[in-house]
């Protein structure tokens, strides 16, 4: 069995409880991600999905278990894994190009400032913000800010992109265009993406696999939905795909009903959460390993 | 003027004329004035000779301050023999040399601190009238906000020398109110020149017995003002600690406080008293000379370190100040001095106020012009007996705790040299020394019996 690109093994997060014991947010979290895969994680607030992302980013630490990236343990933040924050997290005192160039020169410290700016401009253009380089974040709309956030993350040319509900604060229209942007950018690369979302449609549009988590505390991976829609799916035509509604209904059904009182099916092995499909090819498939 | 009286003249009498050469005091004064005027015109060489003589005079006077004793000794062994005897033990030649400024001045740029009051006249006027520059000194006279600051700046060596209240070097040396640091007082600046001023509303309360409940201000706890006011009140049966309040208030604030009715009066240095009159806020109750005629007030003080490490500078400075003092004693110079020291750089007062203080022709605040020529006078000699009196008062009012070796402290601080030791070494009879008796409000002070003196008071804090 070959080691996946990312191997999350038996992760758990516990907090000391007021009564002296401890509260477990999630436990027995096992997941492998292949290079170039786009994985979304869906679950209700409190299931610990942001914590999982933060542990993967190296910003937080797990109470148990380990993460291996290309076989090496993850024990802190790394330029290999770029993060797009929910609230864009741009430095308001820096202009757009400075924000991106700050990341660029962190990645390549020996780079001259002019070269770093040039490199930054490339990624600013990539997210469609050419011409706004000198603007301060305060002069940008929410969508534009998040584009800068994405440009910053991509500019360091990471092996993996971690996105924590990147579009949740945006209005529906803006969110849509940004989703298209992500699809477009990723089309020509083998970037691995791990993304948290609340938005079922977003997950269906972007993800190759969707990880479903039960409600916390003591959350765990219930199952992994394999997205069977064609790779070249478009937002405009998504709902016309025959598998779209079954997948959507499966996800909604999980979020509304099953996540609350998830009963592990017979033969449930947290090390290999069941992989399922929905629609005409519905049923349990082999775990991706 | 007593400095320039010749102590070698055995014929001099103790009567009205201080030098004994003249029939009356006025005749004497006229002669002295003429002599001083003439002295000014003398050539540099003559002056040096005169100063050499002045050093000898000062030393002999220091050793034998009692006029009667000195005359007896001079009569018995003669001036030459006495000087020769002294020279064996006291480096008279060296002192003369230093005094005549033949040695190289170690430091020419000096800073001397002063408080803007007329007591500081010699120190201040030496600057505009060129006494410092005459001795190749570049002295900056720095106005200072209060006595505590003068003390601290002097202790911090920001000032090379300073104008102080004569009790201050004693307090510094004994560590009263600060850590003990050896301090010296080479010269007194002025005698008399203070006054008790009361608010106008008290113009009918001239009897101190009616002052119960008054609030008084004095410039500093360790000041002649404090001791004289306490003495004056106590002599009138008023306990200065329980019957009245005495606060330490910086002179500039005194008139403002008197106007604001925060205090009923003060015993203050001039020009504060005259300024209160000038502004119609108060009247002069009595001059301090009516309490003790000839009392010392302010002094020229320097650290022992300055005196020993820079003897030539110190001597030049002292010489300049003593010359200025001599100049200031002459009544005819007083108007000119008043004009020189009144501007903002020095006292920062109207000329007429300073002039009234220095000439002694002044408005008393009650509608009368008074003429008291010796309202303030200038005399440099630091009598040990002054120091002892001050120490008795410090002790009397509880500022000094424990046993006090009055003589030791007095002789360490007031630089009139260690008389008793030198006397013994030259084989002379034990001296009455640099102490002389004087009267304060009619009561005789015997410097040899400080303890008995304190015990004799009814009101005291012991």
């Amino acid at each position: 069995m070959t080691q996946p690109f990312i191997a999350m093994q038996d992760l758990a997060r516990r907090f000391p409880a007021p009564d002296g014991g401890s509260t477990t947010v999630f436990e027995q979290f096992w997941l492998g991600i292949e290079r170039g895969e786009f994985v979304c994680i869906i679950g209700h607030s409190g299931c610990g999905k942001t914590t999982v992302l933060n542990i993967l980013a190296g910003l937080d630490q797990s109470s148990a278990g380990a993460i291996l990236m290309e076989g090496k343990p993850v024990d802190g933040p790394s330029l290999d894994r770029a993060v797009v924050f929910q609230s864009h997290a741009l430095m308001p005192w820096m202009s757009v190009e400075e924000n991106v160039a700050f990341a660029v020169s962190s990645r390549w410290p020996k780079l001259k400032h002019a070269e770093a700016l040039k490199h930054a401009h490339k990624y600013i253009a990539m997210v469609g913000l050419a011409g706004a380089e000198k603007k301060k974040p305060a002069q940008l709309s929410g969508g534009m800010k998040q584009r800068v956030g994405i440009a910053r993350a991509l500019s360091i040319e990471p092996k993996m992109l971690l996105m924590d509900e990147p579009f949740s604060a945006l209005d529906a229209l803006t969110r849509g265009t940004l989703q298209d942007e992500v699809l477009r950018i990723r089309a020509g690369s083998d970037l691995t993406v791990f993304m948290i979302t609340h938005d079922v449609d977003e997950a269906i549009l972007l993800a190759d696999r969707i990880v479903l988590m039960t409600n916390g505390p003591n959350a765990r991976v219930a199952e992994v939905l394999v997205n069977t829609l064609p790779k070249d799916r478009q937002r405009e035509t998504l709902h016309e795909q025959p598998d779209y509604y079954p997948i959507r209904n499966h996800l909604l059904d999980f979020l509304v009903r099953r996540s609350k009182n998830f009963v592990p099916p017979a033969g449930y092995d947290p090390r290999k959460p069941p992989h399922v499909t929905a629609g005409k090819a519905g049923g349990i498939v082999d775990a991706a390993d | 003027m007593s400095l320039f009286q010749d102590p070698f003249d055995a014929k001099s009498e103790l009567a009205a004329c201080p030098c004994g050469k003249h029939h009356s005091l006025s005749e004497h004064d006229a002669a002295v004035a003429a002599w001083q005027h003439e002295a000014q015109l003398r050539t540099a060489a003559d002056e040096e000779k005169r100063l050499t003589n002045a050093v000898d005079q000062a030393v002999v006077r220091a050793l034998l301050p009692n006029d009667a004793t000195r005359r007896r000794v001079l009569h018995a062994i003669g001036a030459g023999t006495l000087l020769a005897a002294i020279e064996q033990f006291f480096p008279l030649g060296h002192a003369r040399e230093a005094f005549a400024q033949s040695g190289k001045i170690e430091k020419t740029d000096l800073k001397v601190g002063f408080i803007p009051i007329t007591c500081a006249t010699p120190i201040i006027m030496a600057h505009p009238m060129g006494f410092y520059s005459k001795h190749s000194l570049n002295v900056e006279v720095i106005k200072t906000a209060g006595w505590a600051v003068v003390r601290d700046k002097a202790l911090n060596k920001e000032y090379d020398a300073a104008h102080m209240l004569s009790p201050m070097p004693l307090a510094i040396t004994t560590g009263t109110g600060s850590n003990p640091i050896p301090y010296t007082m080479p010269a007194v600046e002025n005698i008399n020149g203070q006054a008790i001023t009361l608010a106008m509303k008290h113009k009918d309360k001239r009897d101190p017995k009616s002052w119960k409940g008054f609030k008084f201000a004095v410039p500093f706890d360790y000041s002649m003002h404090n001791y004289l006011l306490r003495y004056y009140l106590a002599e009138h049966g008023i306990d200065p600690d329980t019957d009245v309040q005495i606060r330490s208030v910086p002179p500039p604030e005194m008139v403002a406080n008197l106007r604001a009715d925060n205090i009923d009066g003060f015993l203050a240095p001039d020009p504060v008293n005259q300024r209160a009159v000038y502004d119609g806020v108060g009247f002069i109750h009595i001059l301090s000379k009516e309490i003790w005629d000839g009392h010392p007030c302010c002094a020229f003080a320097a650290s022992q370190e300055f005196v020993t490490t820079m003897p030539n500078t110190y001597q030049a400075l002292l010489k300049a100040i003593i010359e200025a003092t001599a100049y200031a004693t002459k009544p005819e110079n007083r108007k000119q001095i008043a004009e020189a020291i009144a501007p903002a750089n020095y006292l920062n007062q109207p000329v007429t106020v300073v002039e009234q203080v220095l000439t002694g022709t002044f408005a008393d605040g009650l509608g009368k012009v008074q003429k008291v020529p010796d309202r303030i006078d200038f005399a440099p000699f630091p009598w040990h007996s002054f120091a002892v009196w001050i120490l008795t008062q410090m002790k009397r009012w509880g500022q000094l705790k424990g046993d006090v070796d009055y003589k030791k402290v007095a002789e360490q601080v007031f630089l009139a040299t260690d008389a008793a030791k030198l006397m013994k070494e030259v084989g002379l009879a034990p001296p009455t020394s640099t102490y002389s008796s004087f009267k304060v409000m009619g009561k005789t002070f015997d410097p040899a019996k400080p303890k008995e003196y304190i015990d004799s008071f009814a009101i005291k804090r012991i």
Partner: protein
Amino acid sequence: MKMSFRLRAAVLSVALLVAMLATWQVATMGSGTAADMDPEYAKLMGLTATQGKSAMPGPLDVGKILWKHLADPFYVKGPNDQGIGIQLAYSIGRVALGFFLAVIVAVPLGFLIGLSPLFRQALDPFIQVMRPVSPLAWMPLALYTIKDSGISSIFVIFICSVWPMLTNTAFAVANVRKEWLNVARTLEVSTLRRIFRVILPAAAPTILTGMRISISIAWLVIVAAEMLVGGTGIGYFVWNEWNNLSIANVINAILFIGVIGMALDQLLGWVTRLVTYPE
């Protein structure tokens, strides 16, 4: 309408000023009746006593002296009598020096406290005890230990400037947004780069607010310190003129102190605006 509103406010300001000056002038005119006294005696007395002139100067007296100061602000007539411009320069110099030293100490120390909860906990009791102490209470101690009155007054400025800057810096540094720090962490930014590129600019507006408070306090304190120590400076000027009971000069000094204090505050306000970032 906006312009006319401002115009009306300006007119009202001027009217209030004129009314105030007029009241002041009338109130200080005095009875004008000369007291009955011997002419020789009168010569020795001041105008307050002889003509019933008010001890409080009127606006015209103050204006005359103001003009005198403005006409020749930089004269030197000896160490104790120098122009108002020179005195103000001395005070501003002392404030600038003490303030600058305070910046050098307070900002790094504030960073240390802000970044390290251990230091925050350990230093907190000292800061809480020292902060409320009146800066002038340090003066005797400073004079005694430093042994130089000039440096002592600079020290007093330093000590009064340090606390607002220190507490503001520590607070600002401790409260830099977590997400900016996370950005820096994910970019593996070195500690120094994080401090200078992220924390410092993020905390700068709050630090500058502390500095603005500090400079206002420093300017208040220098006047008192110079009144205490004397020598030079606008505080010494006030003291010296008080010594001469020249209220007109004291009022002039108050005017100058107010204008310079406002200018210092505006200067820091301007710098604060420079480093403030809109979000």
